[in-house]
């Protein structure tokens, strides 16, 4: 008998990598496999842990139920030190922030709130393969790819956005969300200012469309290009900004803390936030972890130096690999951000 309902059938999931049974070790297993397929940042763990582990210990207040949008102190820190940093202005208040157990949980819940069953999510391809799961699990939503081409260096144009939009409609599905990963996974690209303007202009022209920008690698830009967050420019489009723009950030990549399971959403749409509070109850972050993270991210001096050092170490590591690939004559797309690039 088949016990599993439509919402949870394993067939719909990306069949991810198998557990590595032959791991590399420099001494005991030099012929083993090295896993280069998982986007984790191990370069800064010493710096992060030193700060995280010096946070004040758990208190009795941590033991009890708290707000399912997250603790006030963490939301304040995220608004002030993360989202306002992305915006490069005073854009975010603590009331605009929702905290949940990882970026995947946030994306999954935001799309559940924004999309009616059968709606489509427009997603630039190639895309991070687990997006498929984050978008579809329990949500009954479709993915409509926005075809990006290597010959354009994976840039986005209005024509491509229109094509995806029309394609969804032709299939009888309403395009509800444009989901961006900016900086981009897997190309390692930073969207140029003119592309950001194109995207904002285009979203603004579609009154029923929401823009969700997953800016998980915002502080991992090591290349020459300057990173422009959606949040930096969206205020030029008031309607888009007030109800239809939502930014996701998490600790998994920029802070190399994927195990801690903590992601955040910025939005000004109060109905969305109310719904996120309501279903946030299904994916809350433990209070002691929220307190420790509020402490970790709460010091701007620490953050500045962390971000700068992270970029430095990423660039150094990237340069080693890029040089080696060039010497071997293996073509690749030059990366500027994140923990990976396309070979």
């Amino acid at each position, binding site marked *: 008998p088949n016990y*599993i*309902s439509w919402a949870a059938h394993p067939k719909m999931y990306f069949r991810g990598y198998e557990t590595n049974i032959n791991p590399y070790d420099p001494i005991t297993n030099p012929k083993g496999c090295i896993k280069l397929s998982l986007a984790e940042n191990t370069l800064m763990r010493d710096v992060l842990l030193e700060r995280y582990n010096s946070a004040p210990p758990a208190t*009795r207040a941590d033991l009890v139920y708290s707000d399912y949008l997250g603790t006030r102190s963490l939301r304040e820190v995220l608004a002030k030190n993360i989202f306002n940093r992305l915006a490069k202005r005073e854009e975010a208040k603590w009331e605009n922030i929702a905290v949940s*157990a990882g970026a995947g949980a946030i994306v999954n819940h935001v799309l559940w709130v924004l999309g009616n069953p059968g709606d489509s999510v427009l997603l630039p391809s190639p895309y991070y393969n687990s997006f498929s*799961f984050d978008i579809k699990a329990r949500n009954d939503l479709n993915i409509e790819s926005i075809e990006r081409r290597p010959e354009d260096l994976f840039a986005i144009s209005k024509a491509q956005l229109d094509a995806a939009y029309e394609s969804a409609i032709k299939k009888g599905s309403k395009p509800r969300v444009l989901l961006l990963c900016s900086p981009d996974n897997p190309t390692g690209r930073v969207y140029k200012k003119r592309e950001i303007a194109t995207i904002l202009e285009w979203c603004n022209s579609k009154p*029923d469309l929401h823009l969700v920008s997953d800016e998980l690698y915002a502080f991992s830009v090591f290349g020459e290009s300057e990173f422009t967050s959606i949040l930096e420019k969206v205020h030029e489009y008031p309607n888009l900004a007030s109800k239809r723009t939502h930014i996701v950030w998490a600790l998994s990549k920029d802070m190399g803390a994927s195990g*801690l399971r903590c992601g955040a959403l910025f939005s000004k749409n109060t109905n969305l936030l109310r719904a996120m509070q309501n279903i946030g109850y*299904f*994916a809350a972050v*433990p209070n002691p972890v929220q307190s420790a993270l509020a402490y970790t991210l709460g010091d701007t001096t620490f953050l500045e130096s962390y971000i700068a050092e992270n970029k430095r170490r990423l660039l150094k590591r990237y340069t080693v690999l890029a040089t080696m690939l060039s010497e071997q004559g293996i073509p690749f797309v030059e990366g500027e951000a994140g923990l990976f690039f396309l070979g």
Partner: protein
Amino acid sequence: MSTLMAACLLNRGPARRIANRGMVRRLSQEVYDPKIHAISERGFKAPRLLPQYLSGVTFTAYHPKNNPDGHVSFAVAENKMLEDLLVPKYQTAFNGFPAELIYYQETEGYPAFRAAIAEFLTKYVNKGSYTFTPDKIVAGAGCNAMLDNLFCCISEPGDAVLLPRPYYAVFEFDVQCKAGSTIVGVETVGVQPEVKGVERYYPTLKGLEKARDSALQQGLNPKVLLICQPNNPISVCYPKHVMELVWEFAEKHGMHLVSDEIYGAGIHAKQADFWSISRLAADKGRTLGDYVHVIYALSKDFASSGLRCGMMYSENQQVLKSMRKLNDLCQISSHTQWGLSRVFSDTEWIEDFLSKANSRLNDRFKLVKKSLEPEGVKVIEAEAGLFCWLDCRSWLEENTWEAEKKLYQQLFDEAKVLLTPGYSMRTEQPGYFRCCFATHEEVFNEGMKRLKDFGADKLRIEELEEESDDWQTGKYGKFPTTT
């Protein structure tokens, strides 16, 4: 007021604002308009699915020094009596978080944590009779997250979930919000009017069949039987024959059986005999099989609702596979799992902790009896958990739902005490309230004092005999519909 809304609104520290009785947010009366709300219909409806009793009522919490005029809430099932034991232990256990755990862990939960939980559950929930193994456990962000995902796995939108009444009403939200199933309450008291005492709250074959038929009549497919025992709110352990009946019924009709045993290690009454479904399986010499799933969490027995740790145990490989994947969306922070695995592997500490915790709960329960019984309240003997069931019918002006609602309001306005009214737990007779007594000591004492004063002032109607329930004929007035 639902316990969940109350929890969100409670101030734990000094009072920050004065409760404004005029500020009733009419959440449920807005009509959905995509142009205005700019979210989906299901996103709009979700907050309105959460069971409400009196919408938007706000208050500030009593504090002996900072807010002596505040309200005493006995409406949230939280245990605040164990901070002196837990805080120092957690502070030590969470200290020195190691580097390798800062990365992605197995989605179903850190192995050492699952192993520790498996051992713990085996020892305390079924007294070692049935061995739980870590490979069949999925640990995620709370019992509710486990239920949400489990129902996405085993049921479809339009299915019915049978649940004995009275029940913790937020179950309705847990199974409906994303999984789209509907709770169909199983009458207990109403189908056995000749039974007196706490036994009348046990599910019966008659009640289960009736609920199943009712679901079918409503066009719902009865897919799952959900039981919560030790029971919320009656605080009783179902005896072996009831568990046998429940399992037989589920098997006969090809239904999944979900046993929420969240209070399973919080048995504080000496005479109590807890029959976990796993214990019953062992007794019968059988395994749980593909249709039985057990839920547990650390929110109650371990007074750690803020840590968001729940778990599901199942032997169904398909369910496990899906639950593991879905858990990716509600994993527990690795730091928390690591710290807790250290706590649980200190088996001596666990033994001592549970013994002290249950002893304190039992003592506190006895105080409730001592305080309230002289005022005409019948206190049903609690066996487990953080609350007890109060028969306050002698305080009703008349034997109707309206009168219960009025009493709830009077308790809030005059006595400044919150008790969870029976109606909000879908009970079958008006006049019953749940009292969550595991608050801080000063709060408890103040609350009991206020209730005693309130009771002394109450003009009591004469003793109600244990009469049969004619609630179907509307004897108690119109049953309030959920707003």
